[in-house]
């Protein structure tokens, strides 16, 4: 038996829950086929989420999942350009024609889909991102040049959650695109995802008792994102997410974290997202999205 999990046509943080629901129980008993034939567009969050599903199934010692590639030639080319298929080939049995990577000039992809396994990977990522980030942040988003370093800092801290807490490796991608549906402006999006232990298990030993009956995925996210709590006793810990929030507050940015069955977001005025959603379909590990919009004339 094979369980077919449909990849949404427009695959982003909003439609991710529909994707997660396709697995039903985790890990699924059957072999999994991720069907992306109908996918018309995927955000970086969607792409790193797909890889996380493949990684989580591999780590659960399940049969190698299948992936059918998008029917759209344009979508396939774009996924190739982001580096997605190069990593997907290690995790999935891929069905369908995958274009060969072609050399391209400057693009909206600030950072290809990149694995995060250790501290050295974050050095490489921060080193790579700075030139492209300056071009997009100041050139397209109207953010002052010196804020580029804050962006690199936010990216570094978001990636470090994997190295420090996940207990396994993960993925990051950074891309600029026009956020038509909710904002009508250009945005830069950082998406970070891992198949690790998730926020609840990471914080359980130090925080569960404090929350009592309320303890769960939602309260674990609240402890980490709102209260800046860390599982480490070192009083210097827990500043990473606080620093990201501080940076985002200056640029009307948004951070959203999904872990297990909950999602918590710091929602800026331009967005209509719900701050905390609980009882979502389960998905392994943690998925973080940071969104920085082009600055409006008023701001």
């Amino acid at each position, binding site marked *: 038996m094979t369980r077919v999990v449909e990849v949404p046509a427009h695959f982003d943080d909003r439609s991710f829950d529909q994707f997660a629901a396709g697995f039903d129980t985790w890990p699924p008993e059957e072999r999994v086929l991720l069907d992306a034939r109908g996918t018309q567009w995927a955000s970086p969050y969607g792409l790193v989420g797909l890889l996380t599903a493949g990684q989580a199934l591999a780590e659960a010692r399940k049969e190698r999942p299948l992936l059918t590639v998008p029917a759209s030639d344009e979508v396939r080319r774009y996924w190739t350009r982001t580096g997605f298929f190069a990593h997907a080939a290690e995790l999935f049995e891929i069905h369908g024609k995958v274009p060969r990577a072609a050399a391209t000039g400057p693009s909206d992809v600030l950072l290809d889909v990149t694995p995060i396994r250790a*501290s050295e990977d974050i050095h490489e990522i921060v080193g790579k991102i700075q030139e492209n980030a300056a071009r997009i942040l100041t050139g397209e988003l109207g953010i002052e040049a010196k804020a580029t*370093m804050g962006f690199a*800092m936010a990216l570094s801290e978001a990636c470090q959650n994997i*190295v*420090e807490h996940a207990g396994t490796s993960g993925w990051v991608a950074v891309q600029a695109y026009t956020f038509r549906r909710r904002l009508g402006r250009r945005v830069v999006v950082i998406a970070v995802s891992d198949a690790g232990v998730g926020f609840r298990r990471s914080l359980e030993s130090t925080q569960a008792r404090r929350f009592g009956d309320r303890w769960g995925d939602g309260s674990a996210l609240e402890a980490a994102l709102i209260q800046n709590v860390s599982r480490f006793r070192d009083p210097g810990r827990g500043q990473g997410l606080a620093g990201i929030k501080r940076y985002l507050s200056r640029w009307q940015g948004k951070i959203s974290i999904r872990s297990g069955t909950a999602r918590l977001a710091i929602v800026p005025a331009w967005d209509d997202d719900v701050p905390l959603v609980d009882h979502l379909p389960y998905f392994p590990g943690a998925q973080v999205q940071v969104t920085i919009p082009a600055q409006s004339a008023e701001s």
Partner: protein
Amino acid sequence: MVQTISLRHVLQEAVATPYRNLVTRATGAAVRGRIEASLAAGSGHTTLLDFSGVECLDLSCADEIVAKLLLAAASGDRVLVLAGVRDEQREALEHVLAHHHLAVAACFRGSDTPDVLGWITSDAREAFAELRRHGPADPSMLAARLAWLLDRAAVALDDLAGHRIAQQVGGIYHLVTLL
């Protein structure tokens, strides 16, 4: 005696690659370990941490290096001063120093005048600026210069001394950056 430590140099020794970004907690801990070894071997009372050549500084590295060295210095008699700091690195430094209720004197790249970073009262900040502009002072001199009551000036100077940003020599407070 002042011991100057180039963070870029230590970074490249610690990670054995030509990285110019002080990022990740592991890197910060490795860099701090090398600095602590160097301080233990040296005889300097004042340590100048030179950020020249360092590009990005994230919160984890700022915490592991600057905050932890300052916390260690507070239990000894060592003074720490930052130099060659980029304006873009200010945010990470301010954030971690405020988190630990620490403060430090810092010289910024392209600027001749030192500044104070971190958790410090506005009076102490003003006193720092005054000592920088017009030189060392005792509480009565500072009170006269700023038209403050004597107690207010004394508290502000003590605050600077408590953070090892100023040192009292014969009743006169000197900024450590100018010693």
